[in-house]
């Protein structure tokens, strides 16, 4: 669980970035444990990318401090960043260079990277993301998905202790998305800490062990996926042809049935309080002569939790 080195993979306290009058990131306290697959969620404009850029030393924080892999940043950039692979806000390529030469150039940018193993490492990274056949092609001929793969290959050029992946499946086809998921699982199994930012909640739910949620520059929740789910409200779902009488029974039991949904005719749902028990409800339904096809209790989905934390609506925070 915790590979070489002391301290969390990422530890930030009071991290703040102000652009003009706008507090893009406001007092962020973030702890990413070693070995975690950490989902970093938030609507567009909530400060995810600004946070990632600060963590990687591209932006100077207005205030606050942070450590990567136990070392104080940004002072430790030269020694820490070689151990950190990153995909930041989409891939960037030199269109006039081949895929392979793109990787060679970025790898040779660091004086500490080993030139004698460079060719082998570049080939291995290309192979890992399935770009071997297109390695000699100029990058301007790459599709968005291929560029994304090239960006991932760059993040995998060296042995990394931490991967920071900003929207890693952006532009990928379903196969590519699955490959990225299994790649993340593989890397995590090797002990690499993976920090994934995404707004694709199902994706986060599938691979992550930990989650943090940002909203308008602030961190509104952070913890393991289970902890976050535990905070969520259990719901009872009753499938029945007698919708109206079922609603009456649930209301009589002290619950507040949700408004009928056109998406799911023949189901009644309600938030289940601490005390209410599904078994008692079933007995009450049957006693009232409600024909029950099925009854089950579900946790809130991550999506519901996300919306509850970050608010409804389509407006970009700004």
């Amino acid at each position, binding site marked *: 669980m915790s590979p070489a080195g002391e301290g969390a993979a990422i530890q930030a306290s009071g991290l703040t970035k102000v652009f003009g009058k706008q507090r893009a990131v406001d007092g962020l306290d973030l702890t990413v444990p070693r070995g975690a697959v950490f989902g970093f969620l938030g609507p567009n404009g909530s400060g995810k990318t600004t946070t990632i850029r600060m963590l990687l030393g591209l932006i100077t924080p207005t205030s606050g401090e942070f450590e990567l892999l136990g070392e104080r940043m940004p002072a430790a950039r030269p020694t820490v960043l070689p151990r*950190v692979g990153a995909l930041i806000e989409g891939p*960037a390529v030199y269109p006039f260079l081949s895929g392979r*030469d793109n990787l060679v150039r*970025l790898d040779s*940018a*660091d*004086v500490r990277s080993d030139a004698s193993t460079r060719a082998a490492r570049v080939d291995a990274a290309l192979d890992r993301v399935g770009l071997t056949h297109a390695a000699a092609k100029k990058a301007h001929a790459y599709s968005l998905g291929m560029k994304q793969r090239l960006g991932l290959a760059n993040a995998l050029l060296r042995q990394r202790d931490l991967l920071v992946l900003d929207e890693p499946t952006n532009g990928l086809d379903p196969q590519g998305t699955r490959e990225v998921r299994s790649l993340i699982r593989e890397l995590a199994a090797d002990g690499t800490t993976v920090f994934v930012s995404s707004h694709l909640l199902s994706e986060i739910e599938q691979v992550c062990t930990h989650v943090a949620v940002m909203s308008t520059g602030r961190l509104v929740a952070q913890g393991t996926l289970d902890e976050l789910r535990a905070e969520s409200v259990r719901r009872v779902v009753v499938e029945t042809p007698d919708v109206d009488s079922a609603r009456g029974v649930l209301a009589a039991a002290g619950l507040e049935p949700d408004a009928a949904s056109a998406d799911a005719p023949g189901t009644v749902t309600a938030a289940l309080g601490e005390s209410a028990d599904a078994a008692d409800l079933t007995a009450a339904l049957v006693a009232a002569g409600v024909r029950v096809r099925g009854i089950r209790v579900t946790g809130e989905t991550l999506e519901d939790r996300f919306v509850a934390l970050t608010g409804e609506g389509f407006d970009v925070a700004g």
Partner: protein
Amino acid sequence: MLLADELKTLFRRWRTIALLSALAAVPVLIAVAVRVTSHIRAGGGGPAFVGSITQNGLFVSFSALIVSIPAFLPLAVGVVAGDTIAGEASLGTLRYLLTAPIGRLRLLVVKFLGSMAFVVAAVLAVVAMGVLVGVILFPVGQVTLLSGATVGFGGFVVRALLLVAYAALSLVGLTAIGVFLSTLTSVPVGAMAATVVLAAVTQVADSLPQLDWLHPWLFSHYWFGLGDLLRAPLVWDSFGQNALLQLGYLVVFGLLAHARLSTKDVLS
């Protein structure tokens, strides 16, 4: 080593090759123009050395260099130096270089050295193509220097290389300015245009007698001082003054570029 990779990347770029080709076309244009009109009585006008070309083809190189100094070379320098940081920023590769990681000062130094390598290549392209086309189209012989002495081909090559060194040195200041301007923006065309415009404005200022107090401080002031290198014995005055001036520009704009880049929030 990043500098090696930077040079490889720079000189493999189609744009760089096009710029060098355009510069190499200058002596060809001059030589062909003189050749096809050689039956017409040569007037006194035209750029320096043009009148001597029909007697000695080697003068094509000198002539082409002098024609290129005020406009073509600054234009090429503006394109390459203006692109250094802004180009990486506009491609988005700046963020990946910096997280590779490369130190910001090291990146600046590599970019400046890469631009200077291009400057040398650009001046060489003009002079070398000038020699080549001159030899092909015209008779070649002893070269008469400005002081009246003559040198053979070996002496000519030494003088030509001195001119290349002088012209490249003359562009150190403009290159440093271009790299600095490039740190200010993520729109490379903006930095390129600003550099080229600055080169033009400076030359205009240098030609106004009302501003003569300013002239010794302008980076273009010694651009045409290369005549001193065509005398025997060699006169090093303008070489030394030019070197000092260019060094001053390099220090000032190098520090400005470093101050800017080292504190810049990379948002591209």
